[in-house]
């Protein structure tokens, strides 16, 4: 079947199929990892990002409306750099489709252009050889050939064909990819999404195979419904009641069923009514304190296909609780939100006066929504954010764009160590945000971070041979040493820090998996090699990294 007009309903199914196909290939995308370093997997980040759109967007025939809502969902779900770029891609798509009932092929083609342009804007200095290149070339290089003769399927086929070429070329454009012998993971993820669209158009049906997992983005306010509604409560708000009724020939004449008459009846027992009839199906939404009357009446005409009923007193309490939590938060001129991982590090941030510490980091990138939820809990004129990981900075920046009740300031801390040095310069008594930001930024100045972890595969990076499982150390983002001993690997990395002899302060975060003996060995060696530096050991208890060192 040729599809030349796309509406909101079709787009919803297409995106759901895109998500399903990405999910099916998530691990493949995750494995396209440049460094042998454990990190926030691109495939999972992209999947969780788009999943938030698919799960949270109501059906709408209007393509402009649907794509705008979808983009909002994806935006909130964005985590990791690839997720943020993907969310901007969908935002661009929705901008191009804004105000449209449906889109034809040429309009959809143009929307794909707007999509990549918006994605580029999300990145301060766009890097070629990444998802950006793939999504740009995929449409730009076929743009002129797309005309009225194309239908949606052939457009997407052409897009994927060209995108695949671009993807294969990414190692030529980005040296790190070539060295690691992989193609760009974000670009690959995007192609899997488009392949899902194509499969759907080819008639393939995807089941809802979402793995049962607890959403990270659940409301941060937990309420015990027993406190809100119990044996002594009185029903005040009634039930939000929704159902789909299949009209039945044995009970009535479906063709003659009068929806207006039914609505008039609903008005006698409820309010907030939305009801319509579509051939022999009736869809109803109503708020009522007496649902049994409606059920009884409806069953006179047919049987329920679906039925959903919620106690609105509880629903309402959830909303109120969130409002109250915010009000209960003491007003502050400046509040602080940091992302970190490791019990010891989290405690340290709290001790230093951080209002909210989000548990996240290298292997679990915080989403835009998690940031927004944290902001909602605070009652402050300004909120200063410490993402503490280069893959989380963009999600924080995106949350800043979305959240308008406070002014958000993102300190682009790329590591726990940088974050620590920046945050410890914070003056709890300072009320002027400009002065405070100056204090904080002075803290990051000239901090070098060394992180020691374990290689996730055998590879050679920067001429350094890494053996799976063996300790590797990075100075900043560059892998500089590898050694069977985590202590020796760390020391070797230190020797590669420029001007190390003149450094005055070393903050050493001890990971969960290293022993006291290893720590002892490392601190003794540092004391001997760099006697002029003041060394502070913090029992960070972080995973992934044996040692994180902040040197300045």
């Amino acid at each position, binding site marked *: 079947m040729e599809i030349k007009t796309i509406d909101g309903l079709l787009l919803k199914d297409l995106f759901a199929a895109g998500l399903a196909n990405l999910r099916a290939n998530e691990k493949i995308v995750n494995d396209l990892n440049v460094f042998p370093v454990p990190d926030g997997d691109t495939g999972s980040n992209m999947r969780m990002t788009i999943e938030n759109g698919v799960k949270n967007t109501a059906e709408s025939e209007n393509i402009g409306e649907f794509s705008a809502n979808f983009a909002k969902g994806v935006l909130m779900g964005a985590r990791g750099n690839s997720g943020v770029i993907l969310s901007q891609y969908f935002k661009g798509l929705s901008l191009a489709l804004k105000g449209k009932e449906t889109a034809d092929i040429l309009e959809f083609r143009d929307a794909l252009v707007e999509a990549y342009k918006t994605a580029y804007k999300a990145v301060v200095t766009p890097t070629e050889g990444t998802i950006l290149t793939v999504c740009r070339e995929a449409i730009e290089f076929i743009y002129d050939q797309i005309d009225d003769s194309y239908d949606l399927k052939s457009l997407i086929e052409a897009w994927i064909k060209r995108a695949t070429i671009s993807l294969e070329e990414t190692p030529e454009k980005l040296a790190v990819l070539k060295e690691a012998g992989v193609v760009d993971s974000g670009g690959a993820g995007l192609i899997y999404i488009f392949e899902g669209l194509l499969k759907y158009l080819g008639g393939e049906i995807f089941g809802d195979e979402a793995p049962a997992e607890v959403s990270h983005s659940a409301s941060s306010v937990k309420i015990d419904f027993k406190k809100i509604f119990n044996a002594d409560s009185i029903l005040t708000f009634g039930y939000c009641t929704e159902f789909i009724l299949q009209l039945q020939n044995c009970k009535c004449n479906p063709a003659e069923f009068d929806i207006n008459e039914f609505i008039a009846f609903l008005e006698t027992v409820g309010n907030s009514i939305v009801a319509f009839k579509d051939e022999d199906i009736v869809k109803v939404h109503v708020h009522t304190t007496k649902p049994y009357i409606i059920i009884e009446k409806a069953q006179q005409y047919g049987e329920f296909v679906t039925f959903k009923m919620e106690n609105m007193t509880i629903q309402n309490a959830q909303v109120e609780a969130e409002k109250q939590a915010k009000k209960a938060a003491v007003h502050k001129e400046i509040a602080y939100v940091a992302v970190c991982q490791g019990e010891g590090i989290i405690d340290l941030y709290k*001790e*230093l006066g951080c209002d909210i510490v989000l548990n996240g980091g290298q292997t679990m990138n915080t989403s835009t929504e998690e940031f927004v939820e944290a902001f909602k809990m605070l009652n402050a004129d300004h909120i200063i954010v410490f993402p503490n990981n280069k893959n989380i900075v963009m999600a924080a920046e995106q949350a800043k764009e979305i959240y308008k009740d406070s002014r958000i300031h993102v300190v682009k801390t790329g590591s726990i160590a940088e974050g620590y040095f920046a945050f*410890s*310069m914070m*003056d*709890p*008594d300072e009320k002027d945000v400009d002065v405070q930001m100056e204090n904080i930024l002075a*803290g990051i100045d000239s901090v070098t971070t060394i992180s020691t972890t374990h290689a996730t595969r055998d590879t050679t990076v920067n001429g350094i041979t890494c053996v799976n499982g063996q300790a590797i150390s990075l100075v900043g983002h560059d892998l500089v040493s590898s050694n069977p001993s985590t202590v020796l690997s760390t020391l070797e990395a230190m020797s590669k820090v420029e001007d190390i002899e003149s450094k005055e*302060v070393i903050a050493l975060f001890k990971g969960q998996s290293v022993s006291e003996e290893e720590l002892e060995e490392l601190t003794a060696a540092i004391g001997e090699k760099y006697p002029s530096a003041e060394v*502070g050991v913090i029992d960070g208890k972080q995973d992934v990294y044996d040692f994180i060192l902040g040197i300045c």
Partner: protein
Amino acid sequence: MRKIAILTDSTSDLSKALREEYNIDYCPMAVSVDGEEYSASLDYETFTPSWIYGKMREGSRVKTVQVTVEIFNKKFEEYLAQGMDIIYVACSSALSGSCNTGRIIAPELIEKYPGSRIVCIDALASTMTEGLVAVLAAQLRNEGKTIDEIVDTVEAEKKNFHMIAAVETLTYLKNAGRVSAGKAFFGNLLGMKPILISNLKGENYAIKKVRGRKASLEEMISMMQSDIIDPENQIIYITHSDCEEDAKTLGAILESKMKVKGIVYGPIGPIVGSSVGPGAISIAYKGQPVNI
């Protein structure tokens, strides 16, 4: 006109050379180390700086003793008996009770020496900054100003003399109760070097924290640059507690940033040293009035 004696005390950190140059005497305080008292000679006649800092590093209980009534009587009478009046430039009242004691005993001595005058000026500063206030009083006296003129001018100008100090740690000052510091100076302070100023109340006020020693020295100079007046005609005094090398580094940074008439280095005296501990470095100069 009666002659005027200018006196200060052990926290002024005035060297023997300066005291002789401007004809300034001082009332000694005392240091108590593990319960034993030693007179706090500015010339370290009773003990050496390294001995006292060594004791502090070892964790000995080092306390300071303000100028006693006995010492005041002896010192003041020495001049009153010669028919002189006295101006006593005292250590900040926020740091020592000496000024107050001086004011309490003055009326008794005046009664004993009719027609004499004793004026106690609260320098609202310590170390060489207090020293500079005493030097100003002595300069005015040497110019032939009357006691009222001297007191008026010194009172009006004393807070034009600044102190900026970098310390290795606030621990000693906190233990001595001689620092005013906000929350920012407590808790985990790895590598952090506090910078102190002498504020309007005469307290040692922790105004900033800077990471690393070198950075803290640079910050001191940039703070000084922001409010110093007429540096070309000023001698800048740098005093330190057992860290001469850092004092010289500070001087070198200063010379690279601005032209001054000269830099004089000296030790922090035993009383201030006992409060700040080893590793402190302080700079004294004249600038715009202190406004914090």
